[in-house]
């Protein structure tokens, strides 16, 4: 939400959103050093929740160095070392969004360090899977890396941005699957509901993005309308768009939205 204006908070609360969960992500440019990340983590854990609270929207966050900046391993190590001091902040949900971007060796090293951090501090994990042509390969590499660390329980990990070619392997491995709604890339509401109908909704949730580029903070309410158009019951819709996220995030006692 750090890239958005307050009108978006107002629109979300008006549309019935109950909370916003913001992953640490790329700033649209590479930060010049660890101090930039320190300031960003302060923004995510201090200023942004206050800004959201003015619109009655509880704000939660995830912390990490985003995969887009993980090619520089030394920078990543310095940033990862900053994270533990923020983990006790009241709106922190866990480590994320970690993962891969271009599926490089360095990105994989940094992913393993984030996984280790999550294991040492018993944190939930939110995983970003790569874009477009890199998603299938990256998702496989990510699943292998997480499954290799036996301290991590798959049901405490959500693999985000799944699409039709990756959702099955994510669910088969015992992870949660996040379907991300975007106007152009990733998934439309119609495809998201297709995946829900084909693969079931036991460990699946929907999310939107509030990004620097084209993205729609109201994409989840719009997907709920899509479900209603197809005749899904209010109970089914509520389970997918609200109860499932609550079930996953509620594994962290700080997430008290019910």
């Amino acid at each position, binding site marked *: 939400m750090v890239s958005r204006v307050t009108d978006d908070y107002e629109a979300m609360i008006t549309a019935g959103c109950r909370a916003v969960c913001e992953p640490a992500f790329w700033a649209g440019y590479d930060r010049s050093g660890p101090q930039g990340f320190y300031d960003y983590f302060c923004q995510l854990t201090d200023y942004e929740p206050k800004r959201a609270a003015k619109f009655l929207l509880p704000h939660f966050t995830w912390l990490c160095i985003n995969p887009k900046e993980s*090619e520089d391993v030394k920078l990543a190590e310095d940033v990862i070392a900053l994270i533990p001091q923020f983990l006790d902040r009241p709106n922190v949900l866990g480590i994320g969004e970690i993962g891969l971007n*271009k599926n490089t*060796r360095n990105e994989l090293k940094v992913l393993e360090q984030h996984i280790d951090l999550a294991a040492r501090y018993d944190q939930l994990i939110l995983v970003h899977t790569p874009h*477009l042509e890199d998603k299938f390969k990256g998702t496989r590499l990510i699943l292998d890396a997480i499954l290799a660390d036996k301290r991590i329980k798959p049901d405490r990990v959500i693999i985000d941005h799944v699409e039709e070619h990756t959702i099955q392997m994510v669910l088969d491995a015992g992870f949660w699957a996040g379907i991300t709604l975007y106007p152009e890339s990733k998934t439309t509401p*119609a495809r998201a509901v297709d995946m829900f109908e084909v693969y079931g909704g036991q460990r699946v949730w929907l999310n939107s993005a509030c990004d620097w580029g084209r993205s729609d903070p109201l994409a989840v309410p719009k997907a709920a309308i899509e479900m209603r158009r197809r005749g899904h019951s209010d109970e089914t819709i509520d389970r997918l768009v609200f109860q499932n996220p609550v079930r996953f995030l509620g594994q962290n006692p700080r997430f008290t939205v019910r």
Partner: protein
Amino acid sequence: MTRQQILDLYFMDARSKLIDIAAFLDRVDRGEGEPDFRLVEFRKALGELNRGEPVRAKSVLMALSDPTTEPIPKAPGKGAVGAWPGSAAH
């Protein structure tokens, strides 16, 4: 939902997208110079629509995906272009 209901709900939207794809290919044909690998991969992916099973979305995504399994030595940049250029590019 019945097939009739699905057609009632989605046919016009799918028709519009189909014509957009046709117009895109016409536009590329009318353009000058050589296209890159994306057009080749796009045409390959279009072929997946003729499958007789309801796994077309998955098949199109796979047709545009990097099928390799090993991490690459260094990122060529931050972005993705939507199609895999093939092993020659790495």
